């Protein structure tokens, strides 16, 4: 009888402990937070002092897979542990698959759950517009001055003269294909969109599973159906949009898989369930590293891409740690690891010294030339992700199709 009573107490204790202990998962609580110092990271551009205050001991961030490597994938690519050691901020990174997921996560709990996010252009303006992210003073990061000139004031994160984050890196959604099966080597997106060419790979094509992929199809039509008059693949008038959706619906029967989980694409290419389709360089690196015969190419029509920015929540629970992370991610050594492991162009070209020597197994000779790190004109040819809004932003006025329609149509396309 006595034993039972004791056992019955245990769950009650568990609840009391849990309720008292609050929400954070077990983390070292021994980090000093100096009571007296004012955190200079108060989200207000004008009031920010040029140094970051002491860390709060923890950092919760939302990332694209591969943006917070801790050496568990490839030992040489670890920029989380050194950060934790130096700043005392224990990093808890949650990987999201799409920009939309990131926006939702950032807004959870009114913005207090996650401290920051590596947002792409199709999330940044939504976050800024809704007040989810804080303006910061980039001069508090000495490395910011070295960031590529075309990124320092880029409109996707600089609004009204205020910087809402720091750039991370940029790259494109290239076309990956299995060199043994897809012959001749493709040079155009027609290998996934044109029935005459794509028919050979029916059921083995892959698309990115997000409504933003409609822009990829629009990019294809921009080149192949010029009479549609598509100029900006994210700002489509109704007829342009309808034609693009029709293309994707026609493509649907040949698509083997819509991936949003990058590891799903890796699995599919490894098992040859899929042999051609859009990808991020991260998958290309990983597959090649595992010996799978794949190559990636930038097709003639161009490609969509992402220019990612580290942004801080306007209600971050650990603002100093987030700012420290931002500064850390801009340093050349970290930029080099990031660029090499993910396969993207670093925002800070000072990383080129380390990149040209090579950091780890994915090194590439003349990395910075290959990735056009300093090439402003190449940068401008990539159709970076941005949120489609009704305001076309040019002479067409308010006639363009809004993103909420994109999402609905995407459901229809997948069927």
């Amino acid at each position, binding site marked *: 009888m006595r034993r039972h009573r004791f056992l019955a107490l245990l769950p009650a204790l568990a609840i009391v402990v849990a309720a008292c202990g609050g929400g954070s*998962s077990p983390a070292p609580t021994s980090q000093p937070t100096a009571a007296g110092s004012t955190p200079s990271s108060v989200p207000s551009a004008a009031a920010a002092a040029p140094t970051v205050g002491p860390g709060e001991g923890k950092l919760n961030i939302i990332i694209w*897979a591969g943006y917070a490597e801790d050496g568990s994938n490839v030992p040489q690519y670890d920029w989380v542990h050194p950060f934790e050691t130096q700043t005392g901020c224990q990093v808890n990174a949650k990987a999201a698959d799409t920009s939309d997921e990131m926006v939702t996560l950032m807004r*959870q*709990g009114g913005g207090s759950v996650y401290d920051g996010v590596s947002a792409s252009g199709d999330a940044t303006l939504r976050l800024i517009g809704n007040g989810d992210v804080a303006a910061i003073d980039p001069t508090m990061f000495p490395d910011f001055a070295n960031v590529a000139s075309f990124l320092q004031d880029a409109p996707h994160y600089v609004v009204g003269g205020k910087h809402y984050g720091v750039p991370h890196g940029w790259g494109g959604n290239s076309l990956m294909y299995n060199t043994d099966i897809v012959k001749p080597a493709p040079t155009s997106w027609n290998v996934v969109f044109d029935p005459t060419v794509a028919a050979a790979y029916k059921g083995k094509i892959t698309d990115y599973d997000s409504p933003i992929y409609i822009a990829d199809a629009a990019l294809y039509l921009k080149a192949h159906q010029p009479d549609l008059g598509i100029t900006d693949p994210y700002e489509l008038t109704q007829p342009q949009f309808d034609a693009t959706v029709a293309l994707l619906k026609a493509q649907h029967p040949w698509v083997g898989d819509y991936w949003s989980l990058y590891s799903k694409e890796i*699995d599919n290419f490894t*098992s040859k369930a899929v042999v051609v389709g859009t990808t991020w360089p991260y998958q290309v690196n990983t597959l090649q590293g595992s010996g799978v015969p794949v190559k990636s190419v930038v097709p003639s029509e161009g490609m969509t891409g992402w220019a990612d920015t580290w942004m801080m929540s306007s209600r971050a629970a650990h603002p100093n740690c987030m700012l420290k992370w931002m500064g850390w991610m801009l340093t050349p050594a970290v930029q080099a690891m990031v660029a090499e492991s993910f396969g993207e162009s670093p925002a800070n070209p000072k990383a080129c010294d380390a990149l040209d020597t090579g950091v780890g197994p994915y090194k590439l000779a003349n990395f910075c030339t290959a990735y056009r790190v300093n090439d402003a004109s190449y940068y401008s040819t990539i159709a970076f992700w941005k949120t489609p809004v009704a305001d076309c932003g040019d002479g067409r006025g308010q006639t363009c199709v809004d993103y909420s329609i994109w999402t609905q149509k995407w459901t229809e396309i997948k069927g």
Partner: protein
Amino acid sequence: MGRLGLRIATLAGFAFLYIPIGIIVLYAFNAQRVQAWPIQQYSTEWFAAAINNDSVRDALLTSIEVGLGATFIALVLGSLAAFAVQRYRFFGRDTVSFALVLPIALPGIVTGMALNSTINATGIGFTIFTIIVGHATFCIVVIYNNVIARLRRSSRSIEEASMDLGADSWQTFRYITFPVIRTALLAGGLLAFALSFDEIIVTTFTAGTQETLPIWIFSHLRLPNQRPIVNVVAVFLIVLSAAPVYLASRLSGGTGVAGSST
């Protein structure tokens, strides 16, 4: 036909149930990170890696905490409701069992979204407590069904006899009623704990940055390099739970899912 057919069908059923488990165990010993077939090399290195992994220990602890908390709440609330429904007549009596089964019968994503909206709206923040609340809600019916089935089988006369013999309400409960429902509570509690331990959908919506074991597993299975460790964790779970589950099945003498018979 009869006996032999039955035996074959049973065997085939169990084979179906355990072949994927076999695959999991097999891949826990896969030397490579990539899950290709057939397995080229075998190795036990991942077992060491899993044991040394801090995040899985944290996730396991969180899951146990949540499970205990949810089970406790469910035990209390489920028993209260069962006693109320079994022993009294009142308006809305029939709808109670209907309402209680809703959290388990409605899709997890509906429950999850509903709770998520409420948590966001009231601004109480996503903590372990919100996870526990989410889990307790669907665990209540498990206890309720177990207890009510047991109560149906027991007669009140023994309680009345106890009172006649001079015991007061508390003594009657403690010495007469409680032992009667004890195994029902145990069986229900174990099942509730199991349901909470493996729950992922509602948890996704009610957790902030906390990781329960299923969430840890899900986020690590997405990383191709972490898969071997996850397989090892799964094997650990199966092995570790074999004994308690066996014990439970002997104790409860084989009750139903939400537990009724015996």
